[in-house]
């Protein structure tokens, strides 16, 4: 059941990290409005393979908006024109027949291109390994209900923990800052009583790693919040800044 939309795609092609890339134009036809944006790319790739060309490489996995793998910059916006959705949840009904669509990889100093639309986001993992956890070995835990957590705090922690690590915040920020990502994890853990013990070391260590990875600084433009597919709030950045100020003041004593 194919559809009736015809589109012109301008897609970033880059063989690997070393070589230069460029935008290449591909027409695609018979696109159904019920297709997801990635399924439209499946159609393009199938066509390229049939023609003996190399398909476009792009990151994707769960295709239900939760794994955070998909990462296309579409017409100048991370995850495309709609708010609150990842590229895999963007459907072609959001476009019109005859549209030209420009698709690029995430652009950020800390996210080098691997190939075509695929970038390297391992910097995020390294930031988490510098404190994005609570130091509790398996078997250390007490009964879960021995530690009541006010629902308001638990809900806020959950909202921060909903981050999928896709990197849209970084790709959107004119400075390439990872503050929304880092602050979401810092907030989740500092809002919960379990996370308080290490709160100071955590925020300092994670921020240091963030700087080391080459992410830019935050100048409070707020673009990240708008493009975040999971609605992670700027409040988290404010919370990180408070935590950081307190922690550094304390460590200077």
């Amino acid at each position: 059941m194919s559809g009736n939309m015809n589109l012109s795609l301008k897609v970033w092609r880059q063989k690997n990290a070393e070589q230069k890339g460029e935008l290449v134009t591909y027409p695609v036809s018979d696109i159904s409005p019920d297709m997801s944006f990635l399924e439209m790319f499946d159609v393009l790739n199938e066509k390229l393979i049939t023609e003996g060309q190399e398909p476009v490489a792009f990151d994707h996995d769960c295709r239900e908006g939760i794994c955070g793998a998909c990462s296309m910059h579409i017409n100048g916006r991370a995850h495309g024109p709609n708010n609150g959705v990842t590229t895999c949840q963007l459907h072609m009904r959001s476009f019109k027949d005859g549209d030209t669509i420009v698709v690029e990889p995430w652009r950020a100093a800390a996210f080098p291109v691997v190939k075509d639309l695929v970038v390297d986001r391992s910097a995020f993992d390294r930031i988490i390994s510098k404190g994005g956890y609570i130091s509790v070995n398996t078997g250390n835990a007490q009964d879960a209900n021995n530690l009541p957590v006010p629902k308001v705090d638990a809900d806020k922690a959950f909202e921060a923990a909903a981050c999928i690590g896709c990197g849209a915040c970084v790709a959107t920020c004119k400075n390439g800052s990872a503050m929304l990502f880092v602050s979401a994890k810092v907030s989740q853990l500092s809002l919960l009583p379990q996370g308080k013990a290490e709160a100071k070391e955590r925020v300092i260590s994670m921020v240091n790693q963030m700087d080391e990875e080459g992410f830019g600084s935050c100048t409070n433009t707020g673009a990240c919040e708008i493009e975040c597919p999971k609605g992670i709030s700027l409040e988290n950045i404010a919370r990180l800044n408070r935590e950081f100020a307190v922690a550094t003041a304390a460590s200077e004593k």
Partner: protein
Amino acid sequence: MSKLDSKIPEGPLDKKWEKYKSTIPLVNPANKRSLEIVVVGSGLAGAAAAASLAEMGYKVKVFCFQDSPRRAHSIAAQGGINAAKNYQNDGDSVYRLFYDTIKGGDYRAREANVHRLAEVSGSIIDQCVAQGVPLAREYGGMLSNRSFGGTQVQRTFYAAGQTGQQLLLGAYSALQRQVGLGNVELFARHEMLEVVTIDGKARGIIARNLINGELERHFGHAVLLCTGGYGNVFYLSTNAMGSNVTAAWKAHKKGAFFGNPCYTQIHPTCIPVSGDHQSKLTLMSESLRNDGRIWVPKKKEDCIAIREGKKKAIDIAEDDRDYYLERRYPAFGNLVPRDVASRAAKERCDAGFGINKTGEAVYLDFASNMKYKYGKQEALVKGIQNPTEEQLHALGKEVVKEKYGNLFDMYKQITGEDPYEMPMMIYPAVHYTMGGIWVDYNLMTTVPGLYALGEANFSDHGANRLGASALMQGLADGYFVIPYTIGAYLSNEIRTKAIPTSHEAFETAENDVKERINKFFSIKGTKSVDHFHKRLGKIMWDKCGMARNDAGLKQAIEDIRALQKDFWANVRVTGEANEFNPELEKAGRVADFLELGELMCIDALNRVESCGGHFREESAETEGEQEGEAKRNDKDFMYVSAWEYKSMNNFELHKEELKYEVIKISQRSYK
């Protein structure tokens, strides 16, 4: 059975694990530092195992094909995780969780494994909460629970519709902590393509670096496969695009028996297929069945009118709706287990009562609870006297939004319809595979030193898994089982020095992988990898899906063998070996699915009984209250089918008899 020793400890069922745990040989801390463990897969089982083993002092290497371990498909689990905490004071206990799981699995799981699972379930919740996993709470600060299918207590812990995400991020953070401490070496964007065995023992793997295509050799005193299920053999499933059987299949071909491959879970509540462009199916969590009622119209003319767009769900009068689960299963109603709910949906649609364009969909309707349960409650709380229907709807909508908001949003994104106003349309889809690598009580496969954890093994769910039990099993295996049971093997390995990867076994294994990759490129055919995957999926869904029969399965085996030949003659793999090449990755996975699909059909053909997710049309009740329900054959089939790979298209069946010492076997009735 000489080749299958399940190693179930002696003693009464409820004491087995406790007693065994305190008698398993230990490895002292100094020796742990020189023992290396390879963990393949970074989902709940893999991340939990890797973190726990590294905390204990072992040297661990973790491999995942995703760009980050946080993206393993456990992330997509929605509804919840079971644990026998009895926080709701509704009579739950370890025994009840054990009993529900065995019964839910249609008496095809091992008693001892399932009892252990129930025993450790509570500790999982404790561990996750300590890690900062923000599970849902009540106003008093205590953890909240909800109901899931196949049970009559509320034992499911959850974090909105993102429980898997939150639990995985908990395990991932524990894993990353160990990476930061230097106890775990992480290999993201690496795919395992071969198990290396030396003198019959697993001693490492060959992995392909997906960025530059290099083949790497990695030694391990033990290898843990935590690589998930194989639902993508059906092409369309709720699995992630990358989920695959390759690691498990390589292990199988190196001597690991494959257990119950035909046991597949078809989940009743997924968004229906909308067209042939479809690349995957999306689940709508089972937790929705707590508050949703499933129905189709009673009259065929209404169904036709809906399909033609002349009527909508809300135009159908209450008396003209057939709440078929409540009608057929009054005791469990909409909360019957998944296999039962799926078959009931198929039965209605096959009878011509389906309600979307394809005729393959039923309604999941929240209107009633939204208004009369939550709306009324909120009205009372807010002191609104005699609220109107609209007010009730608006008040209830807010509560539903808080409980399932992300699921409703996802539904709207995919279908373009607003489920707060219109009932959802749903249809069953492939979701989980109960079958997997055969393991003993220690989670070791038939290859010494090679283990399988989580969905990758066959062990705990019998022929049907209950909702919210996959997260429980993955974490149980990783956090609380393998850290103990691996000692039984590694305590005998303390004198084994790390084997250099220049060993000829590594050499041969790497050459085999290289040869296969070259073979893909040499075919230079005309059809894409996806083309073959879709054709395989169609064969599997039509003939080895929700209903199976002798003739269909025989035909399927023939069709798959023909498709294998076609694949190896006509597939086109673009690009090169030594670069980032997703087409090459897919080709390897589909080649393995083509072999697995055949084995699934062989297994389904062998099992001439209906049990759990495996429904043989020849084996159904023909009369009485249970007419049309699945009919087990305990006399002939109360065993685990463990298949040994002999050569291409040639598998030998081994049987592990199932003994029930505590549970009384009966027909599984939810009426």
